[in-house]
């Protein structure tokens, strides 16, 4: 028993190590290759306290490339990947449904509609470096979830099947609205479709600052309620009898997961599959206990999306592939491989 707990903790450290290596690789790879050793030096040089120990022996342009272009994109990939994976883990736990993913209760469709509106109407807004697209996307996600939650409510409770059905129905409605908008805005069609496919090109620190707080708060809330989520996996009634305030926990976690999804979609467009498969992979690795499942999902989501973004940038360089296409193109076969290898019940 102790040995297994130890193994699970090892998994977290292992994932952290992989993530660090991936970050350095992701910063190194690009149209101008910078060696990983130099990347490490330049990154450390930026740190207050440590930086003084390092003598700069690299072209100044490298520093600009790294701090202004590559690093924000890499960090955003981590944040978006973690946010989607965390939202997926929360939804799957709450809904006790292996098909649940961040898109399931309509947050992404709402975000998509918000972004599509912003592009097709040519809105221009500016709020701490963010344009109309991410702002309207976040607003769309938030409004959709509030609507779905209220549609699903009967009396004092929000039954899960109602929530799923209301979410799926509203999602199709919003998707139809998106299609309609695309159909009538021929000029921006390319921009909208490109945005919807998801990607991180040209994202600046503003996007990181916009999404990171949601991820931090979301992580804290998810870990705070991890034990309640475990109890709710075994049934809402039994969780109630064990002292969990089921409806309150459900409302809080739903809102947190939806906001995480909205923030991720607002920053990067529709990136499928990460939120669906990462929690499953994490469950295969460490089991269903959310106290360990949540951190492992967050790390694995960051690794997966960062890896996908490296692929998206390099496979057909200098042409960039849409990130959402890459995650599904490589994620789906990987997941099917896992399904075939792992013979136990997955969920």
């Amino acid at each position: 028993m102790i040995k297994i707990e130890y193994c699970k903790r090892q998994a977290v450290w292992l994932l952290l190590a992989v993530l660090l290596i991936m970050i350095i690789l992701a910063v190194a790879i690009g149209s101008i290759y910078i060696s990983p050793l130099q990347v490490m030096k330049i990154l450390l040089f930026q740190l207050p306290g440590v930086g003084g120990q390092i003598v700069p022996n690299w072209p100044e342009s490298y520093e600009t490339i790294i701090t202004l272009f590559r690093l924000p994109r890499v960090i955003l990939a981590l944040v978006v990947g973690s946010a989607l994976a965390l939202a997926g883990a929360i939804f799957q736990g709450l809904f006790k449904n292996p098909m649940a993913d961040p898109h399931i209760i309509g947050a992404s469709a709402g975000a998509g509609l918000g972004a599509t509106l912003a592009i097709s109407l040519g809105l221009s807004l500016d709020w701490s470096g963010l344009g109309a697209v991410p702002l309207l996307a976040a607003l769309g996600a938030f409004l959709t979830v509030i609507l779905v939650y209220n549609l699903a409510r009967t009396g004092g409770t929000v039954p899960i099947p109602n929530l799923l059905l209301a979410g799926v129905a509203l999602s199709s409605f919003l998707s139809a609205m998106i299609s309609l908008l695309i159909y009538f805005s021929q000029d921006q069609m390319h921009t909208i479709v490109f945005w919807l496919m998801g990607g991180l090109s040209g994202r600046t620190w503003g996007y990181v600052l916009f999404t990171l707080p949601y991820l931090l708060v979301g992580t804290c809330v998810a870990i705070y309620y991890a034990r309640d989520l475990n109890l709710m996996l075994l049934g809402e009634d039994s969780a109630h009898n064990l002292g969990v305030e089921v409806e309150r926990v459900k409302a809080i976690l739903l809102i947190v997961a939806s906001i995480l999804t909205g923030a991720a979609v607002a920053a990067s467009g529709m990136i499928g599959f990460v939120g669906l498969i990462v929690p499953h992979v994490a469950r295969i690795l460490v089991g269903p206990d959310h106290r360990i499942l949540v951190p492992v999902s967050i790390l694995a989501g960051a690794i997966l999306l960062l890896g996908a973004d490296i692929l998206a940038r390099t496979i057909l360089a200098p042409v960039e592939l849409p990130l959402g296409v890459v995650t599904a193109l490589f994620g789906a076969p990987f997941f099917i491989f896992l399904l075939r290898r792992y013979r136990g019940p997955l969920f």
Partner: protein
Amino acid sequence: MPSFLTVRDLACGYQSRVLADLNFEIEQGDHIGIIGPNASGKTTLLKTLCGLLKPQTGQVCLEEMSIHKLNSAARARRVAMVSQEVRIDFAFKAHEVVMMGRHPYVPRMGSPSPHDREQVQWAMEVTGILHLADRLVNTLSGGERQRVLIARALAQEPDLLLLDEPTSSLDINHQIEILDLIKELNRQKGIAIIMAIHDLNLAALYCDRLMLIHQNRVFAWGTVEEVVNLDNIRAVYGQSIMIERHPVYGCPQVVLLSRLSPESGR
């Protein structure tokens, strides 16, 4: 001295009213059986007694405190419920599930204290599942899973244990095992038991007092002798019934009769 559990003018149900005019008192250490036909409201009553359903009128008081006004952790430290047919599809280990019973005691973000671990150990010992501790609950048999869930309820250190059809999905040998276990807990630990059970013979064999529910009302409430008699049982379940005595314990037992005439039926 107030009764341990007092139910006053209780009406309960979902949108429509399932049960009304419930008034009864239960003392510490009682072993109560709730019997009645399918859909008579046994589960609804249990769900109301454990605080899951809000009463439509009236109240349920545990030593003067309304159960529905206690905060959830305080309630879970006094009242535990083993629901019917809890499916567990998730790969938790048996000891992890039993530890979930300590949820109302272990502080948030904290880890279980030695006392928490002792209680889990004790609960698994009395339910005889120590050897299953490291097994995954989704791989256990029905009887084993029922024991794990009873152990989880015991880990809550309840004064009142509610059980909804604790034996309905079990083979007869496991039915006896589980009911013996419940009786022992009732006798040795003084835990008050209220269980819904559709098997009249098991109810008569194990319970001190029975409540027969029929047509939205308490049809009969009292000792086994007062409730399981020909008039009551025939009135609720129909005519094809006889009451016999248990050859060993002497308590009333229900014997079923075929509705076909003896010649054509057998």
